[in-house]
């Protein structure tokens, strides 16, 4: 099959993860992976982002497929159930708003900037080496740390299920994928449950 330019977007996804180790402010670029799928689903009513442009999916496909890092087993039934997918989306939302709240507190100068990346919503990993200072308000950096935590956490989860199940098993419960599919269903008046 002929490769198109968008078949190489995994390079961007990989670079994004690496850049976060050097300067946390690059984490803001991740908003592209947030707004592009939403805009495509709202405007066009398709999952064009998942289907074509998702660099993270491509990265998992490459590591699990070409590099053989996946057992290629079936994902358990409960993980593809609507209950789990919608539940995970809600959980992700709650955690995301908590992260926004923490950012707000720093902007409002009610809390100090915490130079940590929180993995799997639990483990606070010191990350001060990627913060170089005073150019922006500390709140800008707080959002970057929070957003990078979300991105790294989901990558770790995705890698974990990539190894256990099929390469792109992250796509089954990816909150963005679930959300864009819901938007498409609403737009096209399809049943949600």
């Amino acid at each position, binding site marked *: 099959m002929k490769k198109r330019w968008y078949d190489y977007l995994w390079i961007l996804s990989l670079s994004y993860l690496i850049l976060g180790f050097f300067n946390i402010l690059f984490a803001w670029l991740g908003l592209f992976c947030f707004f592009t799928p939403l805009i495509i689903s709202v405007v066009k009513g398709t*999952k064009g982002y998942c289907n074509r442009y998702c660099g993270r999916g491509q990265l998992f496909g490459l590591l699990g497929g070409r590099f053989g890092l996946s057992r290629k087993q079936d994902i358990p039934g409960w993980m593809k159930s609507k209950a789990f997918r919608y539940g995970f989306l809600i959980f992700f939302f709650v955690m995301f708003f908590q992260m926004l709240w923490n950012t707000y507190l720093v902007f409002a100068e009610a809390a100090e900037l915490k130079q940590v990346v929180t993995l799997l919503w639990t483990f606070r990993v010191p990350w001060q080496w990627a913060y170089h200072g005073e150019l922006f308000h500390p709140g800008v950096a707080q959002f970057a740390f929070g957003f990078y935590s979300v991105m790294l956490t989901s990558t770790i989860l995705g890698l974990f299920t990539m190894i256990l199940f099929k390469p792109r098993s992250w*796509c*089954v419960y990816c909150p963005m994928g679930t959300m864009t599919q819901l938007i498409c*269903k609403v737009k096209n008046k399809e049943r949600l449950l």
Partner: protein
Amino acid sequence: MAKATRIPRKAQVMESLCVACGCCVKVCPMKAVSIYKGIKAVVDQKLCVGCGKCAKECPASVIEIREARP
């Protein structure tokens, strides 16, 4: 002697569990699969040759190669 009839095997999607990720579209050598309005994968039964690549790729394992009675 009765003519032996062979029922062709083709890809069938369990639509209610499909996440519409599009992995199946990428691997299909016949361009027989498409994502319908971001909701589910749809297999063009006329184009499908039942090779099973999509079933193998599907991260949710919701595609089966089954005998397709017209």
